[in-house]
């Protein structure tokens, strides 16, 4: 187990903890972001080769796998859209309740 994998595991756990335990809507969003970043880190480290080169006209034979990086780029765009939508929903809810505490909301409890 190398360092990037451990780091992504740690990030994933922290994110899951945030979503499950925290009572504040914004902290839930941070948790989601952390989980997404951990997967991105995991995907990038999958394609990493020690001593590898940039895969654009390489000089040697060892190159970094470019496909996971392309996947991560796509995933980041999707995560951006999701996060923006989540924040806009929270703003709407905040206007209604004047609070971002999850336990004050009827359907989100439990």
């Amino acid at each position, binding site marked *: 187990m190398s360092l990037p994998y451990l780091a992504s595991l740690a990030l994933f756990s922290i994110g899951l903890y945030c*979503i499950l335990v925290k009572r504040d*809507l914004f902290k*839930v969003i941070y948790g*989601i972001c952390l*989980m*997404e970043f951990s*997967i991105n880190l*995991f*995907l990038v480290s*999958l394609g990493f080769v020690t001593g590898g080169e940039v895969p654009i006209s390489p000089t040697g034979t060892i190159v970094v796998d470019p*496909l*996971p990086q392309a*996947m991560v780029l*796509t*995933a980041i765009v*999707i995560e951006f*859209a*999701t996060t923006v*939508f*989540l924040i806009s*929903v*929270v703003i*709407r*809810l905040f206007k*209604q*309740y004047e609070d971002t505490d999850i336990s004050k*909301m*009827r*359907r*989100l409890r439990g």
Partner: protein
Amino acid sequence: MILILLIIIPLLAAILNVVIGKSSKKARCAVSMASTLVLIILASKVFKTTIGGDIITYEIGNWKPPIGINLVADSLSALMVLLISSIGFLCILYSISYMRPHRGVPAYDSLLMFSITGMIGTVLTGDLFNMFVFLEVMFIAAYPLVGFFGGVEEMEASFKYVVLSTIASVMFLLGIGLVYSATGTLNMAHIAEITGARGGGLLDFALILLLIGLGLVSAIVPLHVWLPDAHPAAPTPISALLSGVTVKVGLYGMIRIIYTMFGFQAVPIGMIIIVLGVATIIIGAGFALVQTDIKRFLAYSTISQVGYITLALGIGTQSGIEGAVFHILNHALMKSLLFLTVGCVIYKIGTRDMSKMGGLLKQMPLEAAAFLVGGLAIAGIPPLNGFFSKLLIYLACFEAGYLIPLAIAIFVSLLTLAYYLRAFWMIFLGKNNIDLKKGRVPLSMLIPVIVLAIACLLIGVLPDIGLSITERISEQILARWMYIEKVLGGAIA
């Protein structure tokens, strides 16, 4: 060529709707309707070709698989595209009158078309990561549609939906990463070829992660909690689309991944799927019995019916797949019918609370008949379509020797009849203690209801058509080697 058109047409319609914007409400409707009509024509053409046993492929940018992204249509994908486009068309027709008070918001039509694009892309793609992208397109269009009315309840339902489906998407993405690291490819046919040769712990774990992602889309039991909030909160045509079709896209993904990509025999998950399916059947029906909110009631009924399909998928025999595919088709028709019928009732009285309804039979005889057709069909009463798909599932259970799931499935079927009759009694019979809000229900809302009711009756009266279609589809699903050969086309030895 025809496959890429199936994705580009709704996408263009969605973008065109954004461009038209607030300038013309009628033009937006016309664009959506015209594009879905074209989709129906193209999809039936694809369906006609593929049901003969052929598989159509298209390589995007002429990059050969497994390097390039490709689109694949076998008969199951073609059936799904046909379902998505025809129910999408009926929902758009229905929205013309139903959404009239909210027609000033131009995003509605465009989001609806984006969501249709995502669904069609998911069922047509032959690439695992591409499937994730199209699923996300579908999700991101569905989130604002769920919260469309903008009230507190809608916003909370939408928030819950986003949080849970984002977690599921993260799992799905992780699963894709693991599959890539184990096989070095993302093309589904190529993965199928490699996994056919060797399994392994990493791939099993990846399969579980992928199934968690798709299980949330189709609301299988531990992952079902968002559905009873999200489907009632959405505007009724969207509820019909979400319950009727979007949930089935998740089930399609499960069929594709379990049967085509991994091969059913190679993975020891049949039992888990059966247990989850039975749990889904029981929990959905149990909660449906006690609901008073009519749309929440239908949402729980959807969960229960998804359980039947999941159970049939877990059996893994050919008759099991036949039952599952037939029930996917039937439930899409029945549940859209029920949601749209209930939408007419809500349109007229302006409440979703069943305890406040009653005695509507005289004022709304057509809706009462349609509700009865849908309800009895879901319960599996003989001359209607639900009977045959449920019978296939029971037979598959019996043949494979799963007697306890069979007993539970039959018992819950009786329960289903009970809760639909209870709902019918609460809405249409009893004494009338409400004043009706508006005049007549507009024709554009009645036509989709009538069309769907006739479709339910027709499949029930002439079951041979449905049975022969599902038989061919199940044969094609089980013939993995043919899928692999057609897609890769001898590109790799």
